[in-house]
Structure formats: structure tokens, C-alpha cells
């Protein structure tokens, strides 16, 4: 039975940069909704609060495969990517620019809908800093987009009739000008 002291021992060993040490460190295994299995480094896994809480239970051993029924495989990949970078930058003193560059690349190929799905996942997995970053990223995407775009993104039905809609729009016509409606 793996005891907590063993874990502590492996944690202190991990803080060293030696490659050999990294092989011995514990891995945490999760399975996503589509059946994919991921092996996470412990320190990365512990960034994800829902996983951290799960394994903090005494009865759960590290060999257990944690099911994540609300998470898709591609989402897990992205979450791991972000958390790994976050852990890496924790030890750096001045990682501001590097972080900004990484963040820009991270969202580059994601559609807004994917971003939104990922935000939802980050909320479920309880990774605070990732959630904060993703909410900001989504809000940047919907900035200056028109009403139809936002409706479609969030799946909201328009319950105004034409007359009512024109009325509401007429209260602030300036807000509907100078919008930017390129790619979704």
C-alpha cells in the first residue's frame, strides 16, 4: 500500500532536475469520457483540484484510474498542456513574457465554441487560474461581436418579436455600430 511518507519522499526527489529521478515519480491515471487514458505527472495532476481531492481520500490508492466522464480527450490534452506549463513557470522568476507567448499559442487554433467547451471543463475540473484565463479569452472573442453571434455561441433563443427587438435596439443604436464580425 503506498503510504503518504512514500509520496513525500518522491515529491522531494522531484524538485531536482535529474532526468533519472523523473522516471521514478508517481503517475496518476485518468480516463476521459471517450475512453482515452492519460498518465499525468503527480505535480501536474495536483494542479487539478478535482483530481487532488479525489486522491486525498485515504481509501484511494494511486493505482486507481480516476474516471472523468464530463471531459473529452482533446480537452484533457489541453488542460495537461496548460497545467504543465504553469508548473514549469512557477519555478521561474520572471516568466511573464514567456507566459504571455504561451497563452497566445494555446488559444490560437481553438474556435470560440471549443474555447467555451474548454472553459466549462476547466470549471468542472476546478483549475482556477486556467478558468480565469479561459473566461478572459472567451470574453475577448465575443467583444465587439453582434447579437446573433453571441446567441449562437451560447445557444440562447431570441424571445423578442421583431417589434420588441427593434425597440430595445433603438434605445442604444450606438452600441450596434463598429462591430467586428469575422471568423467564429
Amino acid at each position, binding site marked *: 500500500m503506498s503510504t503518504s511518507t512514500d509520496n513525500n519522499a518522491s515529491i522531494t526527489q522531484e524538485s531536482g532536475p535529474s532526468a533519472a529521478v523523473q522516471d521514478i515519480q508517481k503517475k496518476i491515471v485518468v480516463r476521459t*469520457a*471517450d475512453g482515452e487514458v492519460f498518465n499525468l505527472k503527480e505535480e501536474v495532476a495536483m494542479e487539478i483540484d478535482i483530481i487532488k481531492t479525489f486522491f486525498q481520500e485515504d481509501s484511494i490508492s494511486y493505482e486507481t484510474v480516476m474516471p472523468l466522464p*464530463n471531459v*473529452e480527450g482533446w480537452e484533457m490534452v489541453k488542460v495537461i498542456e496548460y497545467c504543465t506549463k504553469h508548473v514549469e513557470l512557477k519555478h521561474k522568476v520572471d516568466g511573464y513574457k514567456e507566459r504571455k507567448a504561451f497563452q497566445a499559442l494555446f488559444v490560437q487554433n481553438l474556435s470560440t*465554441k*471549443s474555447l*467555451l*467547451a474548454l*472553459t*466549462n471543463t476547466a*470549471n*468542472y475540473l476546478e483549475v482556477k487560474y486556467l*478558468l480565469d484565463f479561459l*473566461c*478572459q479569452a*472567451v*470574453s475577448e472573442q*465575443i*467583444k*465587439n461581436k*453582434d*447579437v446573433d453571434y*453571441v*446567441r449562437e455561441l*451560447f*445557444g*440562447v*433563443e*431570441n*424571445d*423578442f418579436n421583431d417589434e420588441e*427587438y427593434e425597440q*430595445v*435596439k433603438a434605445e*442604444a443604436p*450606438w*452600441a*450596434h455600430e463598429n462591430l467586428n464580425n469575422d471568423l467564429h
Partner: protein
Amino acid sequence: MEEGKAKSLFVMAYSDHSSYSSLYEVKIQPGGQVIGGGGECSNRRKRRSSRRRRVLLLETVAARLPTHSHLGTASVVAFNFWWDLDQEGDVTFYISPQPDLEALHINKAFLVQTGRYKFTETRQGYLVHLGNLDFCLVQNRFKKHRADREQKLCITTFQVVVDDERGGKHIIKTLHSTFCEVDSPIRLGFSFTPDCDDFEPTEEEMRVKKQAATLSNLADFDANEFGMSHTIPQELIFDILARLSTKDLIRLMCVSKAWNAAIQDPEWAKLHLQLSIKRNSLDPTFLILPSKLDEFFTMTLFDNGTKGRLVLIKQQSKQVEKRNKILGCSNGLLCIYESMENEDFGLWNPTIHKFKRIPLSAFNKWTQSKTFYGFGYDSVNDDYKFVKMGQFKDPSGVVTSSEVQVYSLKLHSWKRVQDLPSHLNKDYILASNGVCLGSSLHWLMRLGDKGGGPMIVLSLDLASEEYHWFSAPACYNSEHLSINYLDLHVMAGFLCFCFDTDFLRETWILKEYGVTKSWTKLCYYNRYWSCNPLIFSKCGKKILFPRVAELFWYDLENKRIENVSTDIRLVRSRAWALQTVTSVENLNLLRRQPELPYNNCH
């Protein structure tokens, strides 16, 4: 009284001993005579504290005053209550007392004092509207001394009529007053006639109504496209929307009815405001206003304050255009005016292009006064308030009284608050308009009428409506003082006092609020810069000044100037006399339709 139909009046009474209550029904015949009466349908109910009852009738609210027992009369006080809708659909409420209506004649037998005065007596009264201009007053006298009890109930019916003989004045015409002795000890709860749909909404009902317009049902996200089976939680959508600008949010009010209501919810606006203020502290944004407000600029600092992004915004309201002077700025709302003499003040929310005129209000006094104003935010009540303060002189020129009125944006009405503390009012004269710090407005007051005397800072707490005061810095020599300029302003959460000497403007800052000793000289500079500092730099060693349309950092230690680089070609061609204030995105629409009272039983 209306012809024909007898009115049924219900008197709710509580027993003294337990939570046992009973309903008494009384019939009132046309002509005002009270017939019959008797306890019926008793039921258990929680004891309610008796409330002074008001009856709304057309434009008049009648309230009951205590009975003058020895005269056998009771006065009825009426108030005029009305509201005014302006062209923009904006409402202002007014209330003013009317002279007393003439006395009501109550049955003398009811009022007679019997027995010894050792009795402790409880008196209660309840005014009921019977329809049209008919009223009745239900009164209860309950005496108790040890085991002795005496209980009398009196019902007086009256009408309010116009007395043509006395020039159309409203008077009371007592129709009938009857009383009876009641055996069981009762206290009056309330009285009503069912025909009149009389009811008072309870606390719970009012709260439920409020909650309806919240964030429920913001979205039902259909996640099937991605193979997800769950919806996006409210708080998440919330978190994303809260980061948007006011322009985006105003536009998104068109998404659906639920979103429309949610974005207008004052609780949500409060949260958005807090986030805006936070963002402003990271990326400071300023409004630059030319003398003709047909357009204005926002300037956002970035790159650690060394660069500024300038954006031109067109301003469409004619009302705003002519009001190019700023009284105060709170949370991004500006109080602007064209002329103080005309008192044409208005509130302007520049980022959402909303404007609201502040309705005029006259002082009750008519003698000459120099009026000073102030505008600020009351964080306790989440309300924006505009204050008007006047000191009044008697014919010999001595200040004898003061009057202070406050306009509340939330309540759409003016209200008189307590006068200035009399000992201050006697010796000190107001010398500046008010500035807002915390939830208090601050004014400068000067000892003596002629310039140069020691000064104090008077503060009015907008929530508690209390006055406090402390000294201004006693740092200047009054002979050198150029009386043209002396002012209070607020910078970065601190109160600042500045004045001009021959060539310099000195600014003193109150490091610790309310502690006079903590007034510290912040800086002095060429008075021809003619401006007041805006914010501190992140390191705290520099302060930001506006100059024409540019901003520059003044290094306090090295006494050096560093310009904020920006493209000011946009600004150069515009009108002179530019003013700069801190900008915050505020969702306050200024004009929310309040629920107007309705009239029943006409």
C-alpha cells in the same frame, strides 16, 4: 357617501392575552351612520405591530394625528404627493404638507375621561378609505389597571369636501361618530373595506418580486454538438460577461428577455462596476473632454504607463453638449452643468451615452444665499446623490441659518436633511463645492467672511446624513494667498487641498483620513499648469498630471517630467479648455422606470 349601498367595514382586533385575534364587522349606511357591529370569525394569527396607516387618494395622502381629547376633535393632516414625468419618461417624486384640514368631531362620550388617572391607557386609531372622498376613523381606547379593564371603540365617518364659502378650501365634514363599550380587551390591528382592494404588500412579497429579474435562465447551452451532455452553469456565463465593456453589455441586452433583465439588474451592475474599478487600477483610463461636448476622448495607459491609447467618441445628446463644466465624478458618472446660476445640473454616464437632468428644487427659505453643491456615491445604499447646501443671512448680513437638500438618483426625489451644525454655520462660510471620498462629501469652510481665515473641511456622510469636520492644513500665509484659487479634490482615494501662491500651486494630501496632523505637502508646481493631479504611479513616486490633451508623469523625488507618448493629432484640432477625469465603465442607466403608485377606489 355613495347613495344606496351600505359599506362593510372590517376591524381587525387582537386580544391582549394571547395571539387570539378577531375580526369585527361594522356596517356604515349611506349618510355616514354606523349600524350594527359585532365580533365574528375569529382566527389565530401572529401578532402584528400596529402601523400608522396612510391612505392614498388622488394626490393627497391623509394621515392621522393624535386626538385632542378635551376638545373632542382630532386633526387630520394631509400631504400632497405627486410625481412628474419629464419628456424622457423620467420620474421625480414630490411630497409637501398641506395646511391642516379642519378638525374632525368625535363623539364626546368616547373621549370623556372616566375613572382615576392611574389607569394606563392605550389609544389606537386607524384611518380607512371608503371610496371617493369618504373616510372613517376607527379609534380604540383601552384602559387597564390591575384587574380593571375599560375598552371603548369609536367609529367616526367623515367626508372631505370643498368649502365654496371659504374660497374652495378643503375641509372635513363629520358625518357621524358613534362609540360602544367592548367587553373583551382588544387592540386594533388594521381596518379595511374589501370593496376597495386595500392591501399592503408584505416584506416577502416585495423580495420575491425583486428576485424575478435576476440571472436565472441566462442560457440553456445545447452541448450536443460537441458530444457533451451538460450545460454551461450560470456563474460561468456570468464570469465571462462581467469582463465585457459596457458597450458590449448594452448591445447584449438585445439577446433575449432574460439577458435584458439580467444586465439591468442592479446587483449585477454592482459586480460589473467592481471589476471595472479593478481593471482601471491596472490599466488606467481617462476621459478627456473638450469645451464643446459633441465628442470626447478616452485615453488608456499601457506599457507601464509610458504610452497612451487615444480613442475619439462621438457624443449625440444635445443636453450634454452644452454642459461642459464638471461638478464631480463618481464611479464613472459625471455631474455636469452649464451654469450654476441656472442650476441646470445633470448626470452623465459617458460610456453608455445616458444623460439625466437633475430636477430643480427650491430652498424653503427665500433670502439670499450662496449655494454650494456636491455629487457623490453612497456605497451603503448603492445610490448616487446630489447635494445642495445654502447658508442664509439676515438683513444685517449675519449668517443665521442653513438648509441642505439631497437628491437621490435611486429614489428619484429630493429630501431635506438636517441643517449644518449651528456653531459652524455661525462662524464659517462655505468656500468650495463638495468632493466625494468614501461615502462622504467634503466641503471647505472658511472662518469669517473675508478671505484668509483658517479653514476646515466639513463632511456629510451620504448614508447616515451626519456631519463631521476637521481642520484643513494651516500652511499658508493668508496675505500671499491668491484668493482666486483654493480647492479640495480627491486623488487616488486621498483628500487633497490645493491653493495658489504668487507663482506656485501647492498640493497637500491627507495621508490618514480625519487625522489633521497627517496633512502632508505633496508637491508644488507652476500654477500655470492649471490642473490637478490624477493618480499615483504604481511605484508611488510619480503623479500623473493632465495638460491640455496630454498626460505627463511628475517625478516627486527628481522633480522631472516624463510625457506619456500618445498620438495627439486627433486632439490638437479640437476645442481648447480640455478637462481630464478618471473613467470607469458603469452600467448605471440613470433612468430606470420606477413603479408608479396606483390609485384604488376612485
